[in-house]
């Protein structure tokens, strides 16, 4: 793991683009931050280290969105083709927001909070550029 990488949002996003879910762990109190933080808001320490997440977690909360954001609408999501926004509790402790895939978005009543999930990286073409976004799917 590159120790020179600064604990910034851009570093975190760069890891995502390289298909790694990384967090920062406070060397003083042990709290892990995903997305990464340079300053521990629990103990005010700045002694952080990069740690790679296992990518495993469970569904903490979700919604199936029929009226989406422009970013999702331009990728074909709409009332007939909704997408799921979700909050995932990682096995390492932190929670993170991500699109939930591999579920029946049109039948949200079939989706269960507590479902074990694993990370996936979602590729899409936006204005000729390949974008990689964090996603989760049933494990």
């Amino acid at each position, binding site marked *: 793991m590159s120790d020179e990488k600064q604990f910034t949002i851009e570093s975190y996003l760069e890891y995502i683009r390289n298909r790694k879910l990384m967090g920062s762990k406070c060397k003083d109190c042990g709290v892990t931050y995903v997305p990464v933080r340079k300053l521990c808001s629990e103990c005010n320490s700045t002694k952080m280290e990069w740690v790679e997440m296992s990518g495993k977690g469970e569904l903490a*909360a979700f919604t199936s969105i029929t*009226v989406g954001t422009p970013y999702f609408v331009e990728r074909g999501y709409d009332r007939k083709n909704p997408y799921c926004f979700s909050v995932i509790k990682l096995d390492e402790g932190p929670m993170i927001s991500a699109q939930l895939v591999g579920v029946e978005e049109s039948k949200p009543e079939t989706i269960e*909070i507590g479902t074990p999930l694993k990370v996936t990286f979602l590729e899409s073409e936006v204005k000729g550029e390949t974008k990689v976004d964090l996603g989760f799917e049933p494990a």
Partner: protein
Amino acid sequence: MGKLARKIALVGAGMSKFGRNFPEKRNPDMWIDAWLDAVEKTDNGIEPKDIDACYVGNYSSDLFNHQGHLGPQMADLVGLTPKPAARFEGACASSGIAMRQAILAIASGVHDVVAVCGCECMTEQPTVNVTDVLATASDSIFEYPAGATFPGLYATVASAHFKKYGTTAEDLMRVGIKNHENGAENPYAQMQQSIKKLMDSKIAKYTSQGRDLPDWEDEFDFLKSSSNPVIAYPLRLFDCSLITDGAACLFLAAEDVAKDFTDTPIWVAGTGQGSAALSIHDRKEITSFVATREASRQAYEMAGVGPKDIQIAEVHDCFTIAEILAMEDLGFYEKGKAIDAVKTGESKLDGALPINTSGGLKSKGHPVGATGAAQAVEIFKQMRGIAERNRQVKFDVERAMTHNLGGSGASCVVTIWEK
């Protein structure tokens, strides 16, 4: 928790009509309407020379109207320049924060009387842009790329509340039905119709068009039908507050001068403000808002009262689930128990603890930056017994609360009012 260094009263309060007012009325027009309404409701009158500063609550005139710097703009329109004027932003809690800052400025002794403006003109933008502007009150870097919309974030909270406490879509519908019943009695409200009436007019329309009539037996059937589409599961259209233009005006005065304006001042007994991580995923709990718990803890402590002492409340029902959370986080009911109170009608106009007698954000409308100040307008009316039509509560209100929330729960201002 410190006390206010001197007593402060709400001596006048008013608002513009809430609704889709643009382009007939823009922020400056609505603010003048609200100001004139508040002056009229100040018993002995009030003039610019009596006022020391103008505090403006507004969320996003920059993105809605391509206009920043509202403080002096609004001050000038009512003859308050060259006095201090400034704008405060805290998403949907913007004018709650402006009001609290006015209270603190008066308590400091620097000012004796402050005019508070809350305003927002949203319908200048098409709905898709409005949704996008509102989304900037949530986390743009981590929540937004994951697909979060504002209804989506509250729907996410709802999903966790459903799972943890057995809350149902019908429970949320009861909140909407109740608030629309109240809003039907508010001449300033955007939607002055009960859901029953909306349903009946839809049936009448179908009848006149010779279409197949829906088999709705009651409001619940209507609310579960395609006439009330899902926006973000489990929230449907009628679980969401409205896109609204509107303004509100408050006059706050120190005890020393309050009696110049009225013989029946409404005192600020307690004020509190709380915050939380912007992203829901960065909070320890999803089904409870720590900012509300903290703001109300401060307000109760300053007022020296508890939840049982509050007789009526205007709470921030930007979505129906938000009213349920507020009822719990303000301490009125234990977690998971607010839905029982909603079921038995305790929060209705004639219930034990009337909530959102104005119609709430759901029916009165939610011009985001105006909402906090507009909540105080309703409390002002209820405590003085001047609420219009049939929405005046049937008992003398000695103590009331306003609860103004920002974003998906990251900012909160709670105020306790006493006669």
